[in-house]
């Protein structure tokens, strides 16, 4: 990576340094007290050097399910090799509770021992730590037992908070655990104390094609839950979701499978479709059977070779959604502006983002401004938009946020048209002002209604002009970002 390329990362890390310091200074975070129970002063010196990792693991025998839960295949019954004075064979075992799929992947990364067994003096155990609960559900309370043969050595209980390769659980304590038989296999047995029968609405995650929950990332947007399904076998995955699910992301599925969504999760109000392999013009017809749907995002693949049909044949299905309020269409490469026409007549459309297409947007913007209650409009792509069409936006009385992004050049003419819009707005984002002059920029001084004005790549504009604009708009945050020109740009 070149130094130029690293510059943004430097800035990010300097910001992080400040944020970490702020949290510490303001008392939000501080280091937890160290627990140095292993210090030489309190332990026999010889076991300090005897700690051992059970390297390539392992194993897993797992107990029978109590009431019909799903067994998860684990690697074979391998035995870890421990170094040090005690060679402690280790066996991992896991026991999911009923109706709860809880897979434990013991050995995702062969270089990372998922279970570490630290042995102390011969016959004693210091600590057992677990890792790689990659397929767990955060919020689940899990109880573990550590057994040597039939003898329970220790118990631990805790809530799965995050998924990671580190050691979220461990058996450890101030006292060494004495092994009744140092050579007997150690068994780690676990079960979920609160097996979820439905998914916690405050969580988010994804469901694998085989129906197994495999990743939760706590991503919550607003108050919405967002679940993600994908891959082949969509119907099976959907069956596992609560039928009152509100928000769903779907990725890498066939268009013909989408119809299952309306059947399985009819209460959706937010749907995100990514990398769909479109198969026919009726792929999106199922949307009509989602009466609560208010937000829709379709990303990518409109122009993939697998698409046998033009987007023009898919978009009418979206245009017929009379209750839809927010629509995002990204990567519209290959589609023309004319094909967007069905979207201009949506009676409740408050937010629209279109990205990646091309063509003359004048007629579309004119109709949109006159017929929809549009509040947010974001346009990014190789579209043409005339000053007259920008002027038409004055008909959009509710418009609060307008973004015109690269590579669409914003000329002085357009700037004058934007300056003349008398609709009180909050945010104006202009992403490519390479052709704008000082005079065009200063025309924006009329927009005293704005809270935020973003100006990007205004290479022909003098810095003093930006300063004058800010002076003229004392109640507006004028954020001017100049593109760094490399020698090759000159």
């Amino acid at each position: 990576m070149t130094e130029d390329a690293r510059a943004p990362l430097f800035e990010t890390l300097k910001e992080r340094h400040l944020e970490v310091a702020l949290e510490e200074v303001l008392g939000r975070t501080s280091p937890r007290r160290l627990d140095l129970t292993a210090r030489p002063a309190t332990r026999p010196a010889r076991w300090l050097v005897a700690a051992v990792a059970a390297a390539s693991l392992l194993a897993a025998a797992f107990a029978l399910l109590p009431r019909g839960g799903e067994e998860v295949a684990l690697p074979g019954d391998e035995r870890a090799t421990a170094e040090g004075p005690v060679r402690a064979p280790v066996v991992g075992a896991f026991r999911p509770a009923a109706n709860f799929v809880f897979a434990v992947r013991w050995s995702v990364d062969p270089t990372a021992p998922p279970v570490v067994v630290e042995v102390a003096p011969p016959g004693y155990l210091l600590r057992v730590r677990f890792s790689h609960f990659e397929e767990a559900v955060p919020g689940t309370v899990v109880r573990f037992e550590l057994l040597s043969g039939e003898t329970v050595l220790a118990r631990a209980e805790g809530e799965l908070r995050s998924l990671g390769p580190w050691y979220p659980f461990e058996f450890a304590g101030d006292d060494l655990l004495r092994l009744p038989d140092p050579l007997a296999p150690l068994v780690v047995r676990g079960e979920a104390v609160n097996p979820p029968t439905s998914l916690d609405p405050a969580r988010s995650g994804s469901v694998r094609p085989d129906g197994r929950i495999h990743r939760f990332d706590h991503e919550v947007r607003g108050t919405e839950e967002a679940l993600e399904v994908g891959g082949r076998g969509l119907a099976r995955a959907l069956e596992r979701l609560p039928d009152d699910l509100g928000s769903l992301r779907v990725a890498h599925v066939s268009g013909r499978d989408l119809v299952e969504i309306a059947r399985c999760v009819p209460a959706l109000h937010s749907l995100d479709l990514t990398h769909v392999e479109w198969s026919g013009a009726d792929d999106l017809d199922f949307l009509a059977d989602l009466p609560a749907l208010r937000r829709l995002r379709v990303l990518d693949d409109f122009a993939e070779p697998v698409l046998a049909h033009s987007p023009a044949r898919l978009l009418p299905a979206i245009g017929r959604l009379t209750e839809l309020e927010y629509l995002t269409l990204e990567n519209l490469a290959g589609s023309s502006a004319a094909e967007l026409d069905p979207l201009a007549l949506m009676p409740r459309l408050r937010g629209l983002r279109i990205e990646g297409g091309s063509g003359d947007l004048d007629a579309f913007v004119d109709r949109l401004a006159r017929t929809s209650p549009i509040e947010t409009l974001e346009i990014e792509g190789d579209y043409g938009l005339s000053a007259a069409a920008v002027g038409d936006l004055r008909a959009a009385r509710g418009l609060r946020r307008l973004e015109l992004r690269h590579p669409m050049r914003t000329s002085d003419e357009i700037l004058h048209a934007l300056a003349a819009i008398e609709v009180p707005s909050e945010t104006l984002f202009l992403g490519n002002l390479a052709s704008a002059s000082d005079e065009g920029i200063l025309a924006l001084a009329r927009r005293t209604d704005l809270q935020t004005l973003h100006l990007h790549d205004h290479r022909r504009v003098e810095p003093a002009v930006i300063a004058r604009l800010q002076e003229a708009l004392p109640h507006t945050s004028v954020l001017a970002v100049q593109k760094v020109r490399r020698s090759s740009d000159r």
Partner: protein
Amino acid sequence: MSTMTDSTPTPADRLAGMADRHHAAIWRYLRLLGADAETADDLAQDAFVRLIRRPPDDLDEPRAVWAYLREIARNLYVDRIRWRRRRREVESVEIADRVWDEYSEPDGGEAYLRHLRSCLGETTPRVRRSIELRYRDGLDRKSLALALGLSENGAKTLLQRARAALRACIERKLETERSRTP
């Protein structure tokens, strides 16, 4: 009267003293690398345990011990994110190291924190409040905007400006302090 032997710190005492001296710094360093507070706690703990198990040859050289400890912590963190295949974060560790050197060496970030406190005292009440709501109370942008009577973008902008002002203030003070140090 204690004997000479009695007053000589044991290796364990010396290691414990190092923990007292370096713990906060290593925790801050891990936070800068990208660890959340809980992870930084865990890794700092592990780093010290490793230090105790395999102490460096020269325990009497504080700089060497610190460098050794920092290396352990760095490796622990990199191991962890490698497991998660967060390659970009691995790449960023190197740059985080340079940021740490710029801001927080050789005192483990103490001067940075001192200047931050001072700079916070110079902010306007509104900026101070926004900072406290975000970094003390943990409000997200939406809640912050509500609390401040701003749009979400307005709140974001206010925080951006506040951070930029704080950084400039801290950097100025650090520069001044370093220019006075022989």
